[in-house]
């Protein structure tokens, strides 16, 4: 837990990427997210922590409108990406999701070859004009996801044949290939062993140079290791949001302190 002592962390930001104001989410009758205000910085890893059912994944799924695919979900409030309201009627959620990529809890490679998994996004968005350009994107994405050396000789094999950690890095490569501006990660390491987790965490740190990364995690150590900013959610409320070091060493709210010291969860 050495890293917890580093209170001051370098945050090289260029201002806010996403600003959320008064976000409310209802699943049918259930009020899942209550009046959340949150500013997410560019080129930063932001971690959402909190006990199960606290609304952290719900908030994450608001950021790329994945909640639209859940028929009973209702979202109110305002979320702006680079100053543009993403819940505006003129915004096509499909276009938005190309800009705000997502990596899921369980590795979910498509039942296609490794190459086609990564090329999927660029193909449907028409990002490339030629096969060689597509090859370039695939290679660059796999390299960014630190998977290239392991799979470069078997790009034609099914992505489902990889190990769990490799599959998750493949999913990251797949998300990176569409050149998103924000990358949302919903507990990306919860299905992985410690070695694969370490690889993915290292990767998240590298991705910070290009994207704004938002990660939901159950592991407080992981939040402390990879993030610069941390938000603590409890019972649908955003309780505290601040520098990671400050949240873990000097929380302002008693609920945050109880959670990180293991008294509520």
């Amino acid at each position, binding site marked *: 837990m050495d890293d917890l002592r580093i209170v001051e962390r370098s945050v090289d930001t260029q201002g806010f990427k996403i600003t959320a104001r008064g976000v409310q989410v209802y699943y049918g009758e259930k009020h899942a997210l209550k009046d959340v205000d949150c500013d997410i910085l560019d080129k930063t890893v932001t971690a959402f922590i909190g006990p199960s059912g606290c609304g952290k994944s719900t908030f994450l799924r608001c950021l*790329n409108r*994945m909640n639209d*695919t859940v*028929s009973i979900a209702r979202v109110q409030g305002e979320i702006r990406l680079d100053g543009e309201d993403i819940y505006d009627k003129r915004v096509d959620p*499909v*276009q*938005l*999701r*190309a*800009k705000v*990529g*997502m*990596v*899921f809890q*369980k590795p*979910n*490679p*498509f*039942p*296609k070859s490794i190459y086609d998994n990564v090329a*999927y*996004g660029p193909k*449907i*968005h028409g990002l490339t004009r030629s096969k060689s350009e597509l090859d370039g994107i695939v290679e660059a994405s796999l390299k960014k996801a630190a998977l290239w050396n392991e799979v470069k000789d078997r790009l034609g094999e*099914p992505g*489902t044949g990889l190990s769990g950690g490799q599959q998750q890095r493949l*999913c990251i490569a*797949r*998300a990176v290939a*569409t050149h998103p501006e924000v990358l949302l990660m919903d507990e990306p390491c919860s299905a992985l062993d410690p070695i694969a987790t370490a690889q993915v965490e290292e990767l998240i740190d590298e991705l910070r140079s290009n994207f704004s990364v938002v990660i939901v995690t159950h592991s407080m150590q992981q939040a402390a290791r990879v993030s610069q900013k941390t938000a603590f959610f409890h019972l649908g409320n955003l309780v505290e949001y601040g520098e990671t070091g400050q949240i873990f060493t000097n929380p302002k709210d008693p609920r945050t302190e109880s959670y990180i010291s293991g008294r509520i969860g």
Partner: protein
Amino acid sequence: MSVFLLIVVLLVLGIAGYVLGRGRALSSVGGNPRKLHSLPGYYGWHGAILAILPALVALTMWVIAQPLIIERQLADFFPAEQIENDSQRVLLLTDVRRVAQGLDTAVAAGALTEEQAAMIRTEFGSVRDRLATVGVALGSEVTPQVLQAAQRYRELAATGGLWRMIVTLAIALGGLAWAVRTTNGDLRARNRVEVVILGLLILASTIAILTTIGIVLSMLSETIRFSTMYPFADFLFGLTWQPTFQGNSELGLIPLLWGTLYISLVSMIVAVPIGLFTAIYLAEYATPRVRSIVKPLIEVIAGIPTVVFGLFALVTVGPFLRDWFAAPTGLGTSGSSVMTAGIVIGILNIPFISSLADDIINAVPQSLRDGSYGLGATKSETIRQVVLPAALPGIVGAILLAASRAIGETMIVTMGAGAAAKLDLNPFEAMTTITVKIVSQLTGDTEFNSPETLVAFALGMTLFVITLGLNIFALWVVRKYREQYE
């Protein structure tokens, strides 16, 4: 004692075994069920099974074996030349049984006493007339040998019945006694009962397999008989189907096979797209409310008897196609055609494909769809590029199963496709299929010794091989690609 009565007695003994086994187990531990190895009910079942099962097996074997043994003994009554050939022997034995039954009925009706029935002789008057008075009609006058054999048959059957009762009851009581004697708190009754259950499960699954093997063997033997009467290569590769009843038939398979495959092809062209699109709509787009109404409605089609579909083909689809398509374009003048039968079979198969494909599409994990949406794909792109490829092996399996149903369909083609065996490309021409010809070769007064009749078995065998091949191929496809997304 009749077999039915015996079984009732066995059941009573079984209940006794249950009560005794359970009671004895409990009393052996002083009424404290916690000291028993198994729950008290298992000791009861153990007793019941030991009382019933061995006796029931013995009874079954006895019932099968007794007639065989008696028939062998009866053979002594007849001169060797009368029972030389199989069919004669069977006829004589049928006569004997019939007379014996007649005597039984007569005794039961009081027309004869037991002694009279045993003593009655053809010399003292017509046995046929005596039996006719109690309502037993015999085809011809009873010969002395048959009458004697029948009387012997009755004696043997009576003795057999007596011993059958003694042996069965002895085994049942023995089993019961053994169960009671061995029952104590340490007996692993639960494990023993479960072995019996396992045996029951294996028996059930074996019956289905044995039936299939039996069907194949019976068809195979008739097919082999057919091949001794008609050159098999001519059957397989002959281009003409022209059975005549004076002999010199031409029994070529190819026209029938062509008709079968052509009609199946048309039906699949109808059923696959409609069924698949239905499944995609239901699985991906329909709201739960729409789905709960539409899905059962589509499945109603599957419940309609095929003969009703045949009527639909005969009176609606056939004339419609003839009057609006075939006649104006000059392609044909017949209401019965490949198109008629194919379209109606296709409609029949729509719910089959849509229902199976719907289940398969629903089985594709939601995480794959989320992954695709998360990359900014639309619903349609997700379905085309992620969901359908993931579901493809299952869908191919469903299509192949539907194809083998189309190939084996009989009623609709009988009523909608016509009866003319033809090799033609025109889909508005009447053609016929293997199934139709099997039916027509076997209906009416037929003897099972001419190639014209036996060809039905060879046709059946061909059909069996084709559908079996398709089913195996379907299973292979499903198995090879099944776990791709897991």
